[in-house]
């Protein structure tokens, strides 16, 4: 646990809090884009330590929460098929589709397996040649390299029984989408450290410039997050729309080049529908046409499934920072982690689930 406890050290936390308090002179709204950061903030109660001038807005950076209803319905359709082993990151099993979730499919006999890595799905495919193995490739830029690697591995192994249902999302277009909204209240951003570890942060200066917001690359431990907030506040107070890196032990400006190359090899940029928000242009990655034979949407002919969120819970507004989970009348009563009404209650990284677990 070395190199982890240091970043949870109460003494250091208090020093940074003091610096933040000394720097702030007026009200500021800062968004942490990443669900992992929301989770940490709630888990450690960091917002309780901050001066009241600072409001943290929880962003749409939970890949489980923003995967579209349509994509969930496609997953449910494929997972129900006989002779299919459907593999997924654990969090996705609870996400409600139009009428069911993956748990219900499993209770009805579907073979659904939780994997920690898409490469585990490849192993399952190798050991079950008489079955079709499908991996639910969701996530931001963080999971993309491993997911891309699984496609390349399947190809090099000549596996014909492996495919991926790809629903990748990208952070920078979402940041731009939020900032360009006429209702935008976000004055500064904590950028997602692990996304930047892969992609670098060369895309951000243009955004910071265009929308006049400071952006700080931020990690996930208490001291990391507070340092990110401190740098953002200092920039805000001095009207400096700079991109700075508060997570330099992990992130470089260029990012991880081999990982980026692998992503480029397998995926191309497409428009993507976000649950609760709608389509954000160029905000997703899909499989390149040369990998059509690994594209589960094509293999199982589910491409035409269209689902519309018949009516929205306020997840969309929460994901845009326009509401807090407490503002929802269903929060904690009809809507709980066992029976999530909306995506933000489903994943432990979702804003509603974080509030429910730690503030109920």
């Amino acid at each position, binding site marked *: 646990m070395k190199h982890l406890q240091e970043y949870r050290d109460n003494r250091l936390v208090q020093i940074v809090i003091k610096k933040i308090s000394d720097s702030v002179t007026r009200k500021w709204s800062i968004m942490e884009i990443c669900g992992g950061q929301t989770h940490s903030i709630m888990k450690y109660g960091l917002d309780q330590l901050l001066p009241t001038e600072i409001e943290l807005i929880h962003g749409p950076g939970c890949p489980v929460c923003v995967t579209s209803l349509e994509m969930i319905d496609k997953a449910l359709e494929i997972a129900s098929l006989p002779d299919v082993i459907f593999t997924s990151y654990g969090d996705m099993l609870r996400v409600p589709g139009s009428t069911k979730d993956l748990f*219900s499919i499993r209770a009805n006999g579907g073979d659904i397996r939780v994997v920690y890595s898409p490469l585990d799905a490849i192993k399952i495919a190798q050991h079950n040649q008489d079955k079709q193995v499908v991996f639910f490739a969701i996530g931001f830029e963080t999971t993309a390299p491993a997911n891309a690697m699984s496609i390349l591995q399947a190809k090099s192994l000549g596996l014909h029984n492996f495919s991926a249902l790809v629903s990748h999302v990208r952070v920078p277009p979402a940041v731009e989408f939020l900032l360009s909204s006429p209702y935008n209240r976000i004055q500064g951003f904590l950028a997602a450290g692990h996304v930047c570890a892969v992609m670098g942060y060369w895309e951000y200066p243009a955004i910071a410039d265009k929308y006049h917001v400071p952006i700080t690359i931020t990690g996930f431990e208490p001291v990391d997050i507070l340092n990110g907030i401190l740098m953002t506040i200092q920039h805000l107070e001095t009207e400096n729309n700079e991109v700075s890196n508060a997570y330099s032990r992990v992130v470089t400006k260029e990012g991880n080049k081999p990982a980026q190359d692998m992503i480029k090899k397998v995926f191309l940029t497409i428009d993507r529908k976000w649950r609760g928000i709608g389509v954000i242009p160029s905000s997703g990655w899909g499989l390149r046409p040369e990998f059509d034979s690994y594209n589960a949407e094509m293999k199982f002919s589910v491409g035409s499934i269209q689902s519309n969120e018949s009516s929205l819970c306020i997840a969309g507004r929460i994901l845009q920072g326009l509401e807090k989970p407490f503002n929802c009348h269903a929060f904690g009563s009809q809507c709980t*982690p066992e029976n999530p009404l909306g995506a933000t209650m489903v*994943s432990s990284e979702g804003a509603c689930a974080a509030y429910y677990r730690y503030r109920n």
Partner: protein
Amino acid sequence: MLEESVNENISCPLPIQHHDKIVLGHGSGGKLTHDLIQRVFFPKLGNRILESGDDSGIIDLDSGVKLAISVDSHVVSPLFFKGGDIGRLAVCGTVNDISMSGATPLYFTAGFILEEGLDHQILTNVIESMEKAAKEAGVLMVAGDTKVVQKGKADGLYITTTGIGIVPDNVNIRGANARPGDVIILSGTIGDHGIAVLEARNELGFTSGIASDVAPLNKLVSEMLAECNELHVLRDPTRGGLATTLNEIARQSNVCILIEENRIPVKPPVMAVCEMLGYEPIYMANEGKLIAIVPEKYAAKLLETMQNNRFGSESVIIGTIIEKPQGKVLLKTQLGTTRVIDMLSGEMLPRIC
């Protein structure tokens, strides 16, 4: 402005209640299990004894003897894991369920459901392990049953055990007895069993070296009772972990439980695995730990007694009982902030990143 707009035009999609089929989460020991018990079992089979919601039912016989009876099914997969196996688990689980009412466990029964094709040697090994655990705990198996089901209808071997014990005079230990001012003692590190089983399932992809803590706690409990017969609550935090068990007690006793993160002992490898996989140790299963809730004046002596027993050598005080908010468990974090700890909700799932 926002407040005004909140309740307009909001109608959420219908929740998925899982009322038509049983899902794995119904067996997690967490909220779904509780809902199932409240919705299905209590309305038809409920009575004063069953609805007390403790690990064993306490029956007052006309003779003045108080009998404790428990039942537990064991379906662990794989059958063998570092530190234990299904046989040791079955005996210890039952011994502990009886012990948590303060009763002395004396006898148990066991029903075996065997899958066609199970190796004789596996069964022999499990039975030998049960024999050893029964000797260690000083309990006798007094009735048994064996059924065999077709291949594919069970996962090798399931064991259901019933425990019988006698509650000593003047002992009244129940989940509903926690009182404001009481102190909470935990008998050692948490999460060991959960991690050992995950590792045995090859779900970690690496070796943590952690062994299950599965152990019979009856001797520890009898030593505790000899020191202090005013124990208010005893509970072993099995499925659903420390967090779920404390929530059960907070609800049964209608009090608030306040624990301190810094005081909860977790072995570094257990913490490391949890960090990596996105689990929380407070939700991981334990099979050889107990929580004792006692009046503050007895706490120091009791702690010493517990620390002198090998199954309680790492006992620590982790918190206190306060009045409000009733039915909740609060955790004081290492940074001095406070957050709510809820029951495990459904099946335990790793976080994505």
